[in-house]
Structure formats: C-alpha cells, structure tokens
C-alpha cells in the first residue's frame, strides 16, 4: 500500500516531523522571550502552520482549545482580507471573537510565508494576553454583559507591513492596555516566533522545492482524514445524547443547559447542539469556533493519537450550533468564559454521550473549570500597574484501568501553573499560604476521579480581583455508575472576620463564582477550591488494595472510604 503513494513514506514522515517540530520551536521562542507569566510560565499559547486555503498543516502540544479555534480565526482572516492583501513581512493581529477568535484576551498573529515570490502558506500563533484592556484588570470580567467590556477588539489588522511596524496600531493597543510594557514584550515574542517559523519553512522549501512540500502536505491531510474516518468508523453507529449545564452567568441566577445530540454514522460524527439554552447575558457564552474546537478536542482524545495533526483530522466532524444559543452566541454577547469554562464542558459531554458506546475509551468529567481568578493593581514597589490571569488545575475523571490524574489543567488547555516563587516575585498582591491536593474530592468509582486542590492566598497590598469559575454549584459527573467529583469555588475571609464567606455574602456580587472589580485589602484572604474529577465505574468494584492505598496516602479519608466503597480497615 505504501508504494502506491506519489511521495514515499520516508519523505512524508520527515516533512510531518519537520513541520511539527517547527511549531514546537515557535513555542520555545515565545516562552523564552515573553514577559507575562501566562506566557513564560503557563505557556497559554499555541503555534500552528497553515496553507493558503487556511488548512491546518501542523500543530504541537499546545492548548487544544486554541488549536481548534485558530482554524476559524485564520480562515476568517484570509476570507476577510483576501490572499492578495498579503505581502512578505506582514504580520496580522486579530482577537475579535465575532470574527473567529476564541475570546478577547486571545490574540492571534499571522505571517505569510513567501517562497520565490509566491505565497506558500502562513505561520500563526495565538496567545492569551494577561491584560487585554477590559473593564477590570486581566479581562475575563465575570459580570461583563457585552463583549466591549472584555477588552480592546481588534479585527484582522496589520501590525507590521512589509517588515515595518505600523506604529499607529501599536499606539492604539498600548494606550488601551493597563500594562503596555508587558503587551509590547509579549507581542515581540510572538513575532520572534513567527520569524523563526518562517525561516524554518524557507529551509524546508529550499531543500525539497515547494511543489514537493505542497503535495506532501496534501497527502498528509488525506492520510489524516482517512485514518480519522477509520477511527470514527470503529465507533458503533448511533444517536447519543447528553446534557450538562453552565450553572450561572454572573448576572442572573438561572442556569444554562447544553443539549447534545451526537450522531455517529459510519465514518462521520455530527455533534448537534440544537435544544441548548439561549445565550447568556453574562460571559459564559461560547462562540461557534469555541464549540467546534471543544468537539474536535473530544474526538481527537478518543481516536489514535498518532494520526498527523492537521486539517484532515477535522473533516469528518460536523458541529451544529444554532446562533443565539450559549454554544453559538451572537454579537455583542460577552464570551470570555465560553473559552475557559463552556469549552471543557462541551468536550466532556462528548465522552458522556459515548460512555455506553465505547466504555473502554471514555473518561468521566474533569473538574471542568480553569478557575479563572484575575487580579491587578499598582505595584507598591515601583508604582507600575500590573494585571494577571491566574488559573488552576482540576481533578481529571477516572478511566478504564486507571484513576484520574490529580490537579491537571482542564482538557481545553495544556498550560502550566505559575510557580509560587514567580507569582509572589511578580505580583506583590498576595502571599500564598498553601497549595495542596484536597482529599475526598475525586468522585468514587472502580477507577476514582483525580483530586482537585485548594489554594489559600493572603492579600498583602490592595488589589482588584475578578473571577469566572464554574462547578461551584453543579457536580463534575461520573460515568458508568461512577460517583461525582467534589465541586470547587471561591471564598473570602475579610480582615476581622473569622468565617469564610462567598463573594455574594461578603460583597453582594450577583454570583458566588463570577464577578469583577472587587477591591481587597491587606489581610483579606481568598480560598480557591478546584473541583475533583468524576469516578469511572461502580465504586463497589474498586480493588480493595487501591482503597487501602488511597487511605494511607491521604487521598481518601477512612470515613469516605466507608461511605463510598463500604470499606472497613
């Protein structure tokens, strides 16, 4: 079978590896040169390569939600501007969710790659800026009601033309962000990453010639599609349904159900969200690209991870999301939490829907929140403004044969935490008192859900905080009779108070988990709790040795072992 291909498999492997490693190295450049901890510690960015039709050619181990979404950001850019608009040395910047960006803080940069005077394709990256110029520091304002409150919107504009900075664009952006120096450094890091990739693609084109590379890329896309179809073909045909909920929206106390009808028909999958709730007033709405990306993410998790990661993977997947709903909101609804919160919810729902169809491959719900906790203020050491997007890991769901992982970032991301020593050095606002796993937070099951965690922070200088959490009211669910994981949340203990209180009780916010612009004073304390993962399978089937180990390691208390598993030491 190999011999019938126009290009030999060796060349294909080499080109595929080359493109993937190029994406990886774009990431290293961004990490090493960027300014904000969300870049250089958390790695909240993704780097990808596209052809002239906006087809993804390669990606690497970045944030799955960004990778899925950037497809839409790039194709929108190419469609709106037209290919003729690009010249060598141009860099396009874009973050408008109503033009295909995931949410306002996520900025995409795109650079055309020309070879011998002809447009070959594009290198692009997308990164979460720690400060987008929203109504409160760090954006992700939990009570925003319009996208305009979520930061400065940038349609696809050239921040560089033919290698020269467009100073006017820079000025507009830098004047609108609270931390222009950080924005400047991070944007430069993104550009350095694009330059590196452009150079590497030139090397590749010089070595092989552009027609070989183009046909290799087409071939790789076809291979990916063929393999993806075969994988989907192995899932039993059927119409599967699942329902989950976004518990509130920061403005009203109503919840927003999401309804999924998943059709597997031969080699294709259709995820239809018709029947989901109308779009929210608050910022929990997903734009279409985010919803589609979340579905892709789930399907990629359920299929062979060695399939080349390019456009072909996505072709057999269709996503139907009616406009005006929480999974495809319309302008100008706020969208910040769609990307961090609604996205993992949608991904988990695909697993939930398929739990009986492919029980050996699915996973129970993860903690399902990025626990976005935003803060900013004036650094008392130098008088400069600062802003930060802090997020957390969660417990992951149990799966066949193994307990869920403890404290890993939700399935839509692949970011790292900010080390305490970096956090406190950069941000004088807090002292981190503790950061730990929470016993009993994993859902019971034959394979237990992973543990969530807890972080306690004491305010050390006046700071303005915002939050956009979920799973404070609705449980991370188990599958196949597995128990639910523990919920998370955020609480505050103000100076002079002895008890933890919700922000509703302490500050009169509309939601306990979604709010913005709350000013905290030195001595106030914040408690962030990260949800655990759901359990997999009947807890009564759990291996007794695993339960004993859980108790001796302190993952499960004896009381809960008794209650959940009927275990007596």
């Amino acid at each position, binding site marked *: 079978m190999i011999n019938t291909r126009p290009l030999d498999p060796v060349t294909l492997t080499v080109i595929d590896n*080359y493109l993937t490693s190029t994406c990886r190295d774009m990431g290293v450049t961004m990490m090493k*040169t960027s300014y904000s901890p969300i870049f250089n510690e958390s790695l909240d960015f993704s780097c990808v390569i596209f052809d002239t039709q906006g087809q993804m050619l390669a990606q690497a181990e970045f944030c799955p939600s960004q990778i899925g979404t950037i497809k839409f950001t790039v194709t929108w850019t190419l469609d709106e501007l037209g290919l003729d608009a690009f010249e060598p040395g141009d860099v396009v910047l874009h973050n408008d969710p109503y033009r295909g960006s995931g949410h306002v803080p996520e900025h995409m940069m795109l650079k055309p790659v020309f070879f011998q005077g002809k447009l070959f394709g594009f290198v692009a990256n997308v990164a979460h800026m720690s400060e987008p110029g929203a109504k409160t520091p760090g954006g992700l304002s939990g009570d925003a009601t319009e996208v305009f409150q979520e930061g400065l919107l940038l349609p696809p504009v050239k921040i560089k033309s033919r290698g020269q900075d467009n100073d006017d664009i820079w000025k507009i952006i830098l004047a609108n962000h609270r931390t222009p120096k950080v924005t400047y450094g991070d944007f430069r890091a993104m550009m350095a990453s694009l330059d590196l990739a452009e150079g590497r693609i030139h090397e590749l084109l010089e070595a092989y010639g552009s027609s070989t590379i183009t046909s290799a890329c087409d071939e790789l896309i076809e291979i990916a599609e063929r393999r993806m179809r075969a994988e989907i073909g192995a899932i039993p045909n059927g119409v599967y349904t699942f329902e989950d909920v976004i518990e509130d929206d920061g403005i009203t106390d109503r919840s927003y159900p999401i309804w999924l009808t998943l059709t597997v028909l031969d080699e294709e999958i259709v995820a239809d969200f018709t029947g989901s709730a109308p779009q929210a007033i608050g910022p929990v709405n997903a734009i279409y690209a985010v919803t589609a990306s979340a579905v892709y993410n789930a399907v990629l*998790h359920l*299929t062979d991870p060695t399939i080349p990661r390019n456009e072909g993977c996505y072709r057999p997947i269709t996503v139907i999301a009616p406009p005006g709903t929480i999974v495809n909101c319309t302008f100008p609804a706020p969208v910040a939490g769609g990307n961090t919160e609604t996205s993992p919810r949608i991904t988990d729902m695909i697993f939930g829907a398929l739990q009986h169809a492919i029980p050996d491959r699915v996973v129970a719900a993860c903690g399902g929140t990025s626990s976005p906790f935003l803060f900013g203020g004036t650094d008392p050491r130098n008088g400069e403004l600062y802003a930060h997007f802090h997020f957390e890991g969660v417990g992951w769901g149990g799966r066949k044969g193994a307990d869920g992982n403890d404290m890993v970032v939700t399935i839509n991301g692949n970011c790292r935490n900010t080390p305490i020593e970096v956090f406190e050095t950069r941000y004088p606002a807090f002292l981190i008192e503790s950061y730990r796993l929470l016993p009993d937070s994993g859902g019971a099951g034959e394979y237990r859900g992973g543990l969530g*965690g807890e972080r306690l922070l004491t305010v050390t200088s006046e700071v303005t905080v915002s939050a956009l959490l979920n799973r404070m009211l609705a449980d991370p669910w188990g599958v196949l009779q597995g128990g639910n994981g523990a919920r998370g949340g955020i609480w505050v203990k103000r100076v002079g108070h002895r008890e933890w209180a919700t922000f509703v009780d302490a500050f009169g916010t509309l939601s306990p988990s979604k709010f913005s612009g709350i000013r905290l004073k030195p001595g106030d304390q914040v408690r962030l709790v990260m949800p655990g993962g759901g359990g997999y399978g009947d807890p009564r089937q759990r291996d007794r040795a695993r339960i004993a180990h859980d108790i001796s390691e302190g993952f499960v208390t004896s009381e809960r072992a008794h209650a959940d598993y009927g275990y007596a030491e």
Partner: protein
Amino acid sequence: MADSASRFLVGIDTGGTFTDLVAYDPDSGALTTSKTPSVPRHPGQALIDAIQAAGLAVPEIGGLVHGTTVGTNALIERTGARVLLLITAGHEDIPYIQRINRKTLYDLTWQKPKPLLASRQDSVGVLERIGSEGQTIRPLDVAALEAACREVKGRPIEAVAICLLFSYVNPEHERQAREIVERELPGLPISVSHEVAPIWREYERASTTIADAYLKPLLERYVGDLSATLVDAGLTGPWTIMKSNGGAMLAAVAATHPIQTAQSGPAAGMLVAAALGNQAGLPNLLTLDMGGTSADVGIILDGKQKHTTEYEIEWGVPAAIPLIDIKSIGAGGGSIAWIDAGGFLRVGPESARATPGPACYGLGGTRPTVTDANLLLGRLDPGYFLGGRMALNRELAETALMRLGEQAGMPLLDLASSIVEIANENMASAIKMVSLERGHDPRRFALFAFGGAGPLHAAAVARALRIPRVLVPMFPGNASALGMLLADLRVDKVWTQAFRSSRVDAALVAREFAIIRDAAEAELRAEGFAGVPQADFSIGMRYAGQNYEHQVPVSTEAMSEAGLQDAFRTFERLHSERYGYAIAGEEIELVAFHVTVTGRRATPRLAAPMGASTPSEARVRSVYFRGAGDLPTTTWRRYDLHAGTRLEGPLLIEEPGSTTLVEPGMTIEVLPDGQLLIETNAG
C-alpha cells in the same frame, strides 16, 4: 603527578552493558583501550576487569577519572533511597501537583509522573516562611520541626531533602532546618535546596533536591566500595568522578553531590569532541554520539561546549543541574523499525537494547533494528563486529526485515535503506534543533561522529544537513572514556540576586563575585588541585519582565560601571542574534551571577596507532546505496592506515568498536593524529 611506576592516566566509563577504558601513557603518548562487560553487582570488579583487559595493573595508574550510569540508572529504574522531604508547611503537595500540564495532547491514558518520594506521607511541612525579597515572614518553628523529625523516626527513611520557599534568596531557614535534622535524625544524608540547585521555581528546585537525596546513599556506597577495591588493588592516588557539567570532582566529594553525576558519560563525550576538534583545527562542531539505544547530539562553538540546566529524569520530573547541553533521541543501532497505524514506517524510540538486542545478535530478538538494516545493506561485516568477538547472523536479520517488508509492501533492500534513512533523518532533526534553530548554520560546522554506530551514519547525516566535513576520532566506541582523560577539575558557583540595570551596584557585584570565586577556589584546592585556577564569570540577564535568562560572559569579576554597560550591550546583541530583536532602552534584569573555576590539568595530546604505510591491498565487498544499487566497496582496517592517506568513497573503514562509512563522491583523509576527516562535498 606520580613517578613513572604509576604513570598511566586512565578514563573508565561504566555503562549498563559495557565498561569502556582508555589509558594514556604520558611517556610514549600511546593510548590503550578495552571494552569489557559491566558487572552491576560488583562495580569494582568491572573496573579491575577493564584495567586488566587493557594490560594494566592498578598500581601503574597515576590518575583515574570515572564516569558511571549508576545514578542515572537508579533514577530511571526508581531504585534510589526512601527520602523524607521537608518543605514549607502548606506546600507539601508540590511534588505531586507539579506544573499541572500534560505530556501529550489527546491521550486519555496518560498518567501524571510520580515524584521520587515513596509516599505522600514522606512530604512533611516545616512551619516557616520567607518572602520574595528574602524577608522573614514567619520564623522557623524549631520545636515543631523537632517534633516532626521524631515522628518520622519509625519510618525507614534513608535520606532527607530540605526545600523551603525562597531559600535561593535567603537560605537561613534551610540552614536552621539542616542543623535540626542533623541533631534529630543523626546519620542520615541531607540535601538542601539552596545548595543543590539555588534556582527559583519551587517545584523544579524541590524535584532536584529530592533526586539528590534519592541518590546519596547509593552513591556513597558505590564510591565507598570502589575506593576500597581500588585501594586494595594498589591505587595510591586520588580518583575522580565525571560530573554532568564536564568537570571532574574527587570521588568522595561526588558522593555528596550525587545528582551532579547524572549525565557524566555524555558530558565526557562532549569534552573529547571539543579537544579533538581543536586538535584537528575544527573548533566548531556538531556532535553525533550514536550508541545502541539512543543518539546524543550537541554543539561545540569556538572549542567550547554549551551548558544548560534543563535535565529531566522523566517528562515532568526535572533535575536542574548544570550540565553540558545535549539532546538525546531514541535513535540507536538497537532502535526498532515498525509500521504505525497509518502505514508510515517508523524507527524507534523503542529499542531492542542489549538483550535481546537486534535480531542479528542471535540472542532472541525478532524485531528489525537499525543494526539489522545496516547488516543487510552490507555496511557491517558480520565477522568483524566488536573486532570479531560477536558474530552477526544475516539470516536472522533478513527474517526480521522480511516480515516488516510484507506489511509495508516494500522489497528488502529498499526497506533496509529506508530504515537507515529514517534513523538518519531523526538524528538530522535533532542536530537542527541544536544548530539551525539556535541560529547556527550547519554548513559552517564539522560533524564529530562517535559512539559505536555514529561513524557508520555520519556521512549520510552530514549530507542531509549539508555539513561539509565529518571528523571521526580514534576509538569512537570508547570516546566517552577518552573524554574522561581530558576532564579538568571544575567547580560552578552561583549567587542568585535580582537587580535592575538602572539600579545595580557594580561594587557590590564585584564583592560578591570575589566571594563566590574564593569559595569555588577553596573547593578546588580541597579536591587536591595545586595549580593556578582559571575563573570565568557570567551574569544571567533578561529584559525586566522576561522569565528566562541568557548567560552573558563578563571578562572580570572586578565589575565597574563601564564593565556593566558593556555587559548590557552584549546581552542586547545576544538577544538580537537569537530572536531577531532587541528592545532599545528597556530595563535589563540581572538575576544570577555565575563563576566557574577550572583547575586545568595537563591535556594529553591524543593520537591513534597507525600503520607504517597504508597497505596496497584491501578487501572489497558489496554495499547497497540507494539510487546506485550494489557498489563494490573497499574495506580497510583503520589502524593499518597511516597519516596523510587520502581515499575516495565508497569505502568502509573498520575497527573493533566501530565502522566508518564513506559514501560515493566523498573523500577521506587520515589526519596526523590518526583521526579520520571526511569531505562530504555537500556544503
């Protein structure tokens, strides 16, 4: 060094399978080698065996440098000590929480790595707190720590790691904690984070400190046993162990800094590359060390290795030690070829290792490997592997490849050739990462090829990267041992303190540089160095706001304002070279001040044995080259060739530990010191 009775300088590299030795006789300049099986249970015996196999007696040894994988293996196989971690209270789960990211995307079966701790209960909180500026927020609670120590007394703890927040700024609490542990848990080895790895990022520092403690009892035993065996056998002088940073330290000292030895073998390989490159007038090298299970690649710029601190025991479990920057990939002679679910031919990273080994070893391996492919292509002589000590079985290799060929629908030689090409491409990609991606054009380098399999693949790898020359050292299969002969004594010290470029006090920097240089020199003298040490200084700098720094060399520790300004300009130039931009007028942050003190030792001039004149006749065998088919290929015994010989490819040059392949269209020259220089004509 010693009288002529004990004059030999000996390097011994103990790997998992073989113990390699190179001995240098300073009187004659002759090099002697041996390769003997390792004896993991009796490491001392393996050394004695290796020494005897080289025809030496221990009392003849004047200097011994040893590299060992005992630490590396204990880390990989998780057979180290049970460690008690003492960490700032409230943060006991840091080794478990880690950095919360995952290794690969889209893999629901992935398991987060476990720390080197035996139990989560062995991570115990210390009531104390230092802040980000080094201020004491909460004094260390002595009574509570004493009580905690007493509580763990019942557990079979073998070593203690201490890692407290911000100890790299203010180590006072860690020092206090150590004193308490010494008192309360006497006799246990202790590793303290501000000494093991004075870096920020608490998880990385804790992980490194745990790893150090994890290896301590083992290395202490190992060094003790070896010392006893060697002394019994008549060793009179001190002996040293290779560190991952390319320096050597007294064995007894190494036992107290065990994590420093984790990558000692590959580090020695880079030393030999630098030295032999300089000897051949080629100070800029890309290195390819291809062995049985993996290939290590690195870069030598202006005769110097690159250093880093990014080492991982496994993905997600870092050990931030100073080491020579080497990239390791799963491409070796034993790498297995397979067809993935999409029908792509792949090679590695899985390896057949030493057992069962490649199919052609006849030790039970049935899956096709790179070595099997090489054999079928005619590139290896089945009768001269390891100098004829191991016969290779062609039929077994053929059977293994046929099976894969049917699956892939490829004829045998085509498949064998493709396997070699994919392995080559994997190595070429790795070399690109250390060269092109850091702004170094491979066309301006020579490829230094060693390890048993390196010289066989180097010509093709060089061709793919358009590297114009390949340098093959003498005894490429023993190159790490050879490198150990070249190791200087070396001590690295760092002072971690952050300054902004606008507010840095040059006089203070000069004072601190002098303090750490004095401390490093004192250590060097304690290791028996009597000469004049060389001190090199550098400052870790980044733009204020960045989180990763660049090492900016400074010429002297006597920092002046003007010297600092020069250093800032150097930083901007380096940043611009690497990333294509500098930010004019931006504040620069100075975060760490490094000194490396080197005790230079007499570097032997290395020369290979050579024939008096190149024999007029050589054997010819048929070798398959893609595109050209079977070509009659002359094969030479390497050490029959004499200096100045020039030959044209295709040809094979064989020696007991390796085979050098010269492709058609390439030429080879035997250099005056016996190294082989291939002109690839590919630049």
